[in-house]
């Protein structure tokens, strides 16, 4: 039930703050949704829509972090492997 789908705001309508409505594009489908609870959302923003109501604005920079994080893990793992290699070779030299 807590499903929410990201969609792009194509246009904004509504007379009052609580009636603020966006036309949202989900892939090839467009549908109206209430965007009153994300008052800072503007045209072109992606919002998460749950049961016809926007609950959050998708932050593009944060969205990239999952992939950047993987690069950081790999870098960390490489450094650790190199440090182990160095420790092993220095251990061998000492013995």
């Amino acid at each position, binding site marked *: *039930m*807590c*499903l*929410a*789908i*990201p969609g*792009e705001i194509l246009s904004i309508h509504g007379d009052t703050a*609580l009636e603020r409505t966006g036309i949202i594009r*989900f*892939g090839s489908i467009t549908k109206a*949704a*209430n965007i*009153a*609870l*994300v*008052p800072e959302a503007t045209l072109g923003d*992606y919002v*998460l829509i*749950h*049961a*016809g*109501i926007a*609950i*959050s604005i*998708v*932050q*593009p920079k*944060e*969205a990239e*972090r*999952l*992939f950047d*994080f*993987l690069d950081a*893990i*790999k870098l960390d*793992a490489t450094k650790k492997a190199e440090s182990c290699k160095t420790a092993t070779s220095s251990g061998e030299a000492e013995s």
Partner: protein
Amino acid sequence: MKYIAEYRDGETAQQYLTAIKNITTRPWNIMEVCGGQTHTIVRFGIADLLPADIHLVHGPGCPVCITPLEMIDKAIEISSLPDVIFCSFGDMLRVPGSTQDLQSVRAQGGDVRCIYSPLDCLKIARDNPDKHIVFFAVGFETTAPGNAMLVYQAAQEELNNLSVLVSHVLVPPAIQTIMSSPQNRVQGFLAAGHVCAIMGTQEYTPLAQQYRVPIVVTGFEPLDILQGLYLCIKQLEEGHAQVDNQYARAVTEQGNTAAQNLITQVFRVTSRKWRGIGDIPQSGLSLSQQYARFDAEQRFGMAADTPVEEPKECISGLILQGLKKPSQCPAFGKTCTPEHPLGATMVSGEGTCAAYFKYST
């Protein structure tokens, strides 16, 4: 679709799996709280790809599953009344009460409507002034703002032919119940991303500290789950117990304050019964005094809950607390199927048993 397709990339998933294998040195039990996350885990076979030491425990985060039978019976009673238009999210229609379900009421001539958004009820109420419109307001914190907005707008418009049957629940008290159980075996949590989009990450910090348990706020796509698991296992391996936010593209520390304000205005915190688990103090929402006139239970003079017994062979309570898996239930797939569910975890597509049945059989 943007923000979905890239989070299902197989090659990146493989890299995360390798990273998880590299940091795992011993067994860990990790619970994903939300039924949507369980669905992703079972659908994409994530549990089978993880190291054998990582045990995923499926949590109680499916509001359809944990809505008590007594409340389903009240919905059926109200929806059977003449001059009532009963509106509900579609996944509640097939949940059996003690004698029948809402779909059966509709088949017998009751005006039961499946709606996309709670706000759809406003138009139905305006268009049908001679009928009484009742909305079945179930869900976790994710759904509460929309349901609160329905009540708020109905009050603004003085729509007196609309009321709500409220069965809202909250996640943190459920985590407390799980962690306080003497049988608990959960060592880390993937918290529900969309609940936290509303409430923020802040209310989980005291839980992580009190129970010395890592809590990683996590999204719903396969890569979200894998990164959430990586972050949780890393904390466990390093002996940390803090709140991490994997789903920062949608969740902030403070959450959606406009939504929180609306919830606080329309609802008040109350104790609730969770199907399969029992009463949990301060674990739900009811209408605040200011909006009590929209309470369908009061408006239709519903009697206090009469406890209804669950089928004895059903172990959904143990499954909801992460103590058993569907495969350990003798009724699973035999006398209990999505067509004829016996208990909480089979009644909804997001329920653990229903997900296992759909993707494992």
